[in-house]
């Protein structure tokens, strides 16, 4: 025989460990299963009660669902009660059980006993599914008109569930719901208003319909506001606050965007806002709702002032709950009436430092929306102070918000740089890469502030003890690399107001960078930046060249591939002392607008890579999937691991190809096989904004400075135009057509090659729709001009030509030209598609 519920609870309570508890529950569950199997009816309802308890503890109880059904079908009320309770609590989404219960529900809905009906309605309202809603909607509609208020109120709430599950039933219930407004019973009124609200949410037509009832609603509201004490519905001295709140909310929905409706309700709103007692929570809940309604409908200025004053009172209240709702509402109001909210700015800012996390979060949200050009300085100061003490969970969000605000409203560049520096110093690990990039663009443009900036950066980097402060370290490394020489005595220009003089020797700069370079805790990204910065400094601090050479040398064996590669490249650069200073010259100012436009493309490295891939396709022709396949086929043979680096890296290059800096940047950052191709692509991407992106004689990118150096000593090696001649080849001869290539190069050492492809037809039939597509490996760049025609006359009586520009960025590594062709044509009425590899390029041509 099973024990009583109390005993079960007691034994569970006596358990000292979770394991013991599990044990007790498992035993009890087993006993319950046994009892259910035996059809032990005497203790059925007690057993279900136990199941509920077990369920509450968080153990599985699905086996008891059938038992609940049996109890529901029982004739006596107490058993039914337990059955329904069990059903509501234990049920999960097992539809078959729900199906079974429909019939019992239908029976109980038509029962003569009001409590049975109420029970069925409650259960139905809590658990019904769409199918059940359809089946039982007519019964519920009948009950909505019942003479019994107990049943009416429950039927109304059941209906809210029905219409939620089956929205097309809204129309059917629209009138019966409005009828409930005539009810005198508060419960029925309350549920009726709830139902109307729900319908308005589901069906915009209902809002129009219910606008006719606004006077009625106002009447009810007025009687609630002005009538004296009514013991029946008194809560904390207020007459049924729940009903008032619901009515106000319904008025809000009805009045939104409708001047006439808003006008009708403005009197009662004013009355409610002035007459409600604000000392108790119940009264405040009404005021709160009232304010929300006033603010969202088309109300008059006077009413709004009233509402904002109430909020101001809430905000000044000691009760945190009120402060919380005030902040919450102000956040909604700020879009409507920013001026009114600004008046409470100081209080709001105080709330940012509140001990309570809920209030803090609300206040912060609000502060962000309050910021404008006029108050940015003060508010940023407050936010920065808060950033220093805020919890870790707040910091990422807070940091990005501050950065956005500084970027949007920063009054001048000096202030902008100062504040960004503070943000980065305090929460450097949370500052996003694009924010750093934008800052660098800004610095390159602020010529007169560069001396100041680099001093500030030097101080910040020196004071920074946190290796995870990536953004600060990268940006300051970049600045030191670019403007490090301005730190030297007498070079940095005038001090800013209030700035302390800084005297730094060249070795101190290198010391600082070296310390960061060897910091094993720092991100690889930071160390890469530092390495490049050192390299840049080798041109600016002549006294430190040998030392920098030594440091760079240490990293030629670094385990991080990227570092190793850079170090190797840089080390090689030291062999060319004539051009090194030019290569490492200061970057020209970056175009802010262009940067902003490019930002979209550089969002992620993979995006940039994708875009670079696209730019490889022949110009003019739409990107064709077949070609991409070809490309990857070709790439399959190559061991190249392509690493595209977007973001700041791209900033290291020069975005404009006309500048003399371009080849230097290209060489300095990645001449070695793996990255160069991607880097070159990226450069191309940036240069796409200029009118002619792929002129063969363009000095940018493709030219190899080392090679140029070997050919003719001197920094400005201008190769002789003209170039060598190469024999023509027949690339393809198949299906009766012939493709022959003839070559020309602007110079013998140039990586660029122009190929003139000539197509001819030796068959007696004409060839039409001739098209040729070409693909090259990643390290090459290809541009197809359009062909002179698409049809080839028969018997070789004419040719079609097409120019192909190729440039091989790995020419000096000995990589030969390689190309794959895809040809499609209609030969004598039959379609021919062919692919082939061109591998007979003349020797010496690369």
């Amino acid at each position: 025989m099973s024990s009583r519920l109390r005993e079960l609870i007691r034994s569970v309570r006596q358990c000292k460990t979770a394991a013991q508890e599990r044990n007790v529950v498992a035993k009890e569950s087993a006993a319950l299963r046994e009892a259910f199997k035996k059809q032990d009816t005497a203790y059925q309802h007690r057993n279900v009660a136990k199941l509920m308890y077990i369920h509450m503890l968080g153990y599985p109880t699905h086996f008891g669902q059938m038992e609940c059904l049996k109890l529901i079908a029982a004739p006596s009320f107490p058993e039914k009660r337990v059955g329904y309770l069990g059903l509501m609590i234990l049920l999960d989404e097992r539809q078959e059980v729900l199906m079974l219960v429909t019939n019992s529900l239908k029976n109980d809905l038509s029962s003569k006993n009001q409590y049975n009906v109420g029970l069925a309605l409650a259960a139905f309202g809590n658990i019904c599914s769409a199918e059940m809603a359809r089946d039982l909607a007519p019964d519920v509609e009948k009950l909505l008109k019942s003479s019994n208020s107990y049943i009416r109120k429950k039927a109304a709430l059941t209906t809210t569930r029905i219409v939620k599950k089956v929205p097309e039933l809204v129309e059917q219930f629209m009138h019966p719901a409005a009828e409930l407004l005539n009810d005198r019973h508060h419960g029925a009124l309350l549920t009726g208003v709830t139902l109307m609200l729900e319908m308005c949410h589901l069906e915009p037509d209902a809002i129009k319909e219910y606008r006719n009832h606004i006077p009625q609603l106002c009447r009810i509201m007025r009687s609630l506001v002005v009538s004296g004490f009514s013991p029946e519905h008194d809560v904390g001295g207020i007459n049924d606050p729940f009903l008032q709140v619901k009515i106000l909310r319904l008025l809000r929905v009805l009045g939104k965007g409708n001047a006439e409706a808003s006008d009708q309700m403005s009197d009662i709103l004013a009355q409610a806002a002035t007459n409600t007692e604000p000392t108790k929570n119940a009264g405040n809940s009404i005021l709160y709702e009232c304010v929300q309604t006033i603010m969202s409908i088309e109300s008059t200025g006077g009413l709004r002032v009233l509402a904002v004053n109430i909020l101001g009172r809430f905000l000044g209240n000691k009760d945190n709950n009120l402060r919380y709702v005030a902040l919450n509402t102000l956040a909604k109001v700020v879009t409507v009436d920013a001026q009114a909210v600004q008046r409470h700015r100081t209080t709001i800012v105080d709330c940012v430092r509140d001990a309570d996390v809920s209030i803090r979060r609300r206040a912060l949200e609000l502060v962000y929306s309050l910021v404008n050009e006029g108050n940015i300085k003060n508010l940023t100061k407050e936010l920065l102070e808060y950033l220093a003490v805020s919890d870790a969970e707040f910091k990422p969000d807070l940091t990005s918000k501050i950065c956005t605000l500084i970027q949007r409203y920063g009054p001048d560049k000096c202030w902008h740089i100062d504040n960004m520096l503070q943000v980065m110093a305090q929460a450097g690990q949370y500052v996003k890469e694009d924010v750093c990039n934008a800052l660098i663009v800004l610095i390159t443009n602020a010529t007169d502030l560069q001396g100041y900036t680099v001093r500030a950066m030097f101080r910040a980097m020196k004071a920074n003890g946190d290796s995870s402060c990536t953004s600060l370290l990268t940006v300051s490394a970049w600045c030191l690399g670019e403007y490090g020489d301005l730190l030297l005595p007498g070079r940095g220009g005038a001090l800013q107001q209030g700035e302390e003089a800084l005297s730094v020797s060249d070795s101190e700069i290198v010391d600082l960078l070296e310390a960061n370079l060897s910091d094993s805790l720092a991100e690889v990204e930071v160390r890469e930046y530092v390495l490049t910065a050192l390299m840049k400094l080798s041109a600016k601090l002549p006294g430190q060249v040998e030392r920098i050479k030594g440091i760079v040398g240490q990293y030629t064996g670094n385990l991080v591939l990227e570092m190793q590669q850079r170090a190797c490249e840089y080390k090689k650069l030291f062999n060319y002392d004539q051009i090194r200073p030019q290569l490492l010259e200061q970057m020209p100012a970056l175009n802010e607008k262009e940067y902003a436009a490019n930002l979209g493309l550089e969002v992620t490295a993979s995006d940039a890579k994708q875009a670079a891939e696209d730019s490889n396709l022949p110009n003019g022709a739409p990107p064709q999937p077949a070609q991409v396949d070809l490309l990857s086929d070709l790439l399959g043979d190559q061991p190249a691991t392509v690493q595209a680096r977007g973001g700041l890296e791209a900033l290291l290059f020069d975005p404009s190809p006309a500048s003399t800096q371009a080849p230097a940047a290209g060489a300095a950052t990645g001449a070695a096989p793996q990255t160069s191709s991607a880097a070159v692509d990226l450069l191309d991407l940036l240069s796409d904004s200029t009118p002619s992106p792929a002129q063969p004689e363009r000095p940018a990118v493709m030219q190899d400075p080392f090679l140029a150096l070997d050919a003719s000593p001197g920094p400005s090696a201008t190769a002789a135009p003209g170039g060598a001649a190469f024999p023509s080849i027949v690339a393809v001869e198949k299906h009766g057509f012939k493709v022959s290539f003839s070559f020309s190069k602007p110079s013998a050492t140039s990586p660029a090659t122009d190929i003139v492809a000539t197509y001819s037809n030796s068959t007696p039939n004409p060839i039409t729709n001739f098209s040729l597509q070409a693909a090259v490996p990643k390290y090459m760049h290809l541009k197809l001009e359009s062909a002179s025609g698409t049809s080839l006359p028969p018997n070789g009586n004419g040719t079609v030509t097409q120019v192909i520009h190729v440039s091989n960025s790995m020419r000096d590594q000995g990589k030969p030209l390689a190309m794959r062709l895809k040809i499609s044509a209609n030969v004598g009425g039959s379609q021919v598609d062919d692919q082939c590899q061109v591998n007979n390029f003349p020797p010496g041509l690369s």
Partner: protein
Amino acid sequence: MVNKQGQTRLAKYFDDFLAVEERRVLEGEIVRKCLARSDKQCSFVEHRNYKVVYRRYASLFLLAGVDGDENELAVLEFIHCVVEILDKHFAHVCELDIMYNLDIVHYILDEMLMNGCVVDINHQNVLAPIKLLERVAKDS
């Protein structure tokens, strides 16, 4: 309803079905958040996409999860109403009353709340069916 040790004493869900395991996790998270707060802090905590309104009565916490645009103060008032009615029924309600009379408390709540909406807050209206039920139980 949760006691000070974070043990759930009564739980009711209206909106969506949650698996038993999820419920345990959810309750655990919310309770930890609320218990960590002091009396002086406000009664609202944001959790996932819900807002939790809670009120403490001696060793017992009553929590209600509501959606974003519910009137928090009204919910707070409702919690108080529930407690008043429980108090009236049990005459100085305490944690043990709720524990051992789980079913009765559920009945009372069912009379006050349905599908997440307030049905009635009038003491007599709410308690009438419960009284009736108890009379029947005594008789049998």
